[in-house]
């Protein structure tokens, strides 16, 4: 058991597809919240093998895509401070902010370094004691505990030149905001697998209970997603709405208690601004008072100026599930992975990038 190839076996996929076709009668629209699921669905052509009564829409589960330009501008402003080294995950580099991208300011001389982990960022801080390392804290509940751990490590190791720009976002509140807006009618939710590895399956229960929408937590291999769709179909055809886990090898109902403990020790919920959705209460994380000395926004005096949205870009509507990349006039013309206008074309998990790379020609 290596936990990868076993979940890509085509003969098992055929069985699931056949069962879905046999069981599914009711027209239904499912949202895959997570960009990782969007990538799996496109890479393996899953939309094309589902019955025509099932429509799949992509949700806002791409942390880079939902980061507002006003917040991206803060990262750019920090990068332009001479004694600051920006440490960031690589997919942030090409994201266009209001006036430039990290890649552009790096070309102009800013010290922007790509890291795989916060552990690398801490190492850079240790090796450069006269400079300040700012880690761009972008990510959901999956990533936030790793950044909390890095802050605790910095405290333990007395690393005084390590800071975090905390732009973390929380998933359940934004799903609630989407459902409350009533803009897109959903009949099932594919819940994010690695967010749920941390928070567990309980935080999704309000969706099944209060909104009557079936929820299934899915893994990221093709069999995981197919099994998840099959379980959603079964709930719909049985007239049920509950939370189930299709990814039982990776997700426990109670989540990862140690990760939640560390995240809760360092961060507390705050309002956050989402691209396309505006401000959503309690959907962000800020550093608790005891850890504010690690807060890059408080440590440095920055003035990012007024934020601008790219003209003609409909990433916000796509992230809410009300439009698809094919509705965008810029898609594939002015906006490509090489020269992205909006963030959904930059990230490999963005729906514009998935549409561009894998096409499909099949909406729904």
């Amino acid at each position, binding site marked *: *058991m290596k936990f990868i190839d076993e979940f890509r076996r085509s003969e098992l996929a055929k069985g699931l597809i056949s069962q879905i076709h046999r069981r599914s009668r009711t027209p239904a629209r499912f949202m895959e919240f997570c*960009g990782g699921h969007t990538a799996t669905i496109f890479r393996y052509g899953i939309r094309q093998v589902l019955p025509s009564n099932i429509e799949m829409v992509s949700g806002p589960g791409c*942390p880079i895509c939902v980061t507002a330009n006003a917040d991206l501008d803060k990262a750019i402003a920090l990068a332009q401070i001479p004694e600051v080294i920006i440490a960031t995950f690589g997919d942030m580099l090409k994201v266009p902010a209001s006036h430039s991208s990290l890649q552009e300011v790096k070309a102009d001389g800013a010290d922007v370094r790509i890291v795989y982990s916060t552990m690398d960022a801490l190492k850079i801080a240790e090796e450069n004691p006269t400079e300040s390392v700012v880690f761009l804290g972008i990510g959901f509940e999956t990533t936030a505990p*790793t950044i909390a751990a890095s802050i605790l490590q910095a405290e333990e190791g007395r690393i005084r030149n390590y800071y975090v720009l905390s732009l973390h976002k929380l998933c359940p509140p934004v799903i609630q905001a989407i459902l409350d807006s009533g803009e897109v009618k959903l009949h099932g939710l594919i819940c994010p697998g*690695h*967010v749920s590895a941390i928070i567990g399956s309980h935080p999704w229960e309000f969706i099944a209970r209060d909104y009557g929408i079936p929820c299934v937590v899915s893994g990221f291999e093709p069999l995981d997603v197919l099994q998840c769709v099959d379980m959603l179909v079964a709930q719909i055809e049985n007239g049920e709405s509950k939370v189930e886990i299709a990814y039982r090898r*990776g997700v426990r109902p109670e989540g990862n208690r140690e990760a939640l403990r560390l995240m809760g020790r360092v961060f507390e919920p705050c309002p956050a601004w989402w691209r396309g959705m505006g401000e959503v209460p309690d959907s962000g994380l800020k550093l608790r008072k005891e850890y504010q000395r690690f807060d890059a926004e408080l440590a440095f005096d920055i003035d990012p100026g007024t934020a601008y949205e790219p003209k003609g870009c409909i990433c916000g509507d796509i992230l809410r599930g009300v439009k698809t990349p094919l509705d965008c006039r810029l898609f594939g013309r002015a906006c490509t992975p090489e020269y992205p206008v909006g963030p959904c074309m930059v990230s490999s998990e963005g729906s514009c990038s998935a549409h561009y790379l894998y096409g499909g020609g099949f909406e729904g």
Partner: protein
Amino acid sequence: MCLAIPALIKSIEDKEAEAEIGGITRRISLWLTPEAEVGDYVLVHTGYAINVLDQEEAEETLKLLEEIAAAAEEGEG
């Protein structure tokens, strides 16, 4: 962004481990999974193990999927 991949823990030293990911050995942090042991598969996200994978659950899921596939084949035949 929430990508996490299975890795096999080869050795543990304090809160860090050597883990094999697709044939490559790399150092990962066990800050979030203090219960992890040598021989466990963990899900690694940005250098941190975020959960210990449950082998029994994985086998049970595959068994269920095999039953579904067998039933589907029977239905077709």
